[in-house]
């Protein structure tokens, strides 16, 4: 029987190379994150905040108390009547702002 020459691409070589490639990508991800965090320029956004006196992010625009979460009053989630249940999806996922929460006793 003729012995087969060992393959140049052993399973371990391929696997270790793939793992090294993933680790290299992970390293590149860390470098890219650090580089972009250092380069980010928020001066225009911050100027807009200063100019208009903005208080909140326009992330949840479906109801006024989720759009301006920090400006909401204690009753805004019950705006229809005192026993009204909260019905906006994002409101159901939001806690009350800490400054409106009852003091811990």
């Amino acid at each position, binding site marked *: 029987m003729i012995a087969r020459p060992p393959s140049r691409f052993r399973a371990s070589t391929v696997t270790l190379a793939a793992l090294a490639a993933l680790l290299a990508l992970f390293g590149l991800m860390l470098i890219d994150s650090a580089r972009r965090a250092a380069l980010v320029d928020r001066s225009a956004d911050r100027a807009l905040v200063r100019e208009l006196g903005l208080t909140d992010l*326009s992330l949840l625009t479906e109801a006024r108390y989720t759009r301006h979460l920090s*400006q909401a009053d204690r009753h805004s989630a019950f705006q229809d009547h005192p026993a009204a249940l909260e019905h906006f999806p994002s409101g159901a996922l939001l*806690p009350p702002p800490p400054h409106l929460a009852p003091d811990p006793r």
Partner: protein
Amino acid sequence: MRVAFERQKYLIDYTLAALLRRKTRNLGLLLVYALLVFLFASVLLLSQGLRREAAALLQDAPEVIVQRLAAGRHDLLPADWLDSLRRIRGVSDARGRLWGYYYDPAVKANYTVMAAAERPLAEGEILIGAALARVRAIGVGDVFSLRAASGPPALFKVAGILEPSSELLSADLLLLSESGFRALFQFPPERYTDAVLTVSNPREASTVARKIALALPSSRPILRSEMLRTYDAVFDWREGVTFLALAAPLLAFAVLAWDKAAGLSAEEKREIGILKAIGWETGDILRMKLWEGALLSLTAFLLGYLLAWWQVFHGGARLFAPILKGWAVLYPDFRLTPTVDPGQILIVLAVTVVPYIVATLVPGWRAAIADPDAAMRG
């Protein structure tokens, strides 16, 4: 050194051959494992990214906002309050803000309408946020019609579109002149929505707020620190709620992984017995099991984390948009600044990789220290 490396490579060759014997099961496990890491890492990266963005953007938010409350609801603030506020020691400036909401039935979207005193806008001109322009499909020079409080439609010319890069702040903004704002909403003269205060010493903001509450009992001062805390709490809460929702798949995976890793089958025990009988040391078997756990869990971790990072910071976190969006029509197209916290990576590693390696090693070790004869006989 080379010999030691070759020895490890032979061990990996053997491990891979063993894993490939149960190809479908192990490949399925790897995919589910990577998906779970992806979901957990996505939630962590998105919450952390948004939290940092909110903190960075809102650090220039007003030091104190003063609202007027009537019967527990937000009411309009009389202009003479501004003088009273300016007289409070520690307050260096007070200016009224004019803003409100407009529901547009044409696209079922809510806009935040604001008077921009510092912009040179004529009464019939507006500036709009980029998301609003996208949803209404309008551009600079187009005419935008809003229903005035008096009834007839008010026509505005779009004088400009706010920078798309600031969509996280301005997606739904509609800026107009003070006179345009008052005319659109029939807003009473000498009244403002609320007041923005500048405090001489920001560290005294809470003292100033107490003085305001005493001087104007129907007022409600809101501090910048409270605004920042609100966003911190929001994303902590959302993170918690999502983790709670992910707890069920995590438990299912834990059972699957434990069953796969910890419960060695009779066939696997016999395999270890044969390896011992032909001269493998307990240490070799442990190394082989270590490679098995490490290769599978490390690959799943790296794949899952890299995909999560790409999805959150380059894909605009579209996967989570439905959760954040709710019923809203306007949703900002934002790109978060990538942030990777080494502590957070270690947490994901500790929660996902370490338990799997331990679950693979312990039963392997128990089978390896057993008598080969007993192991082979089952």
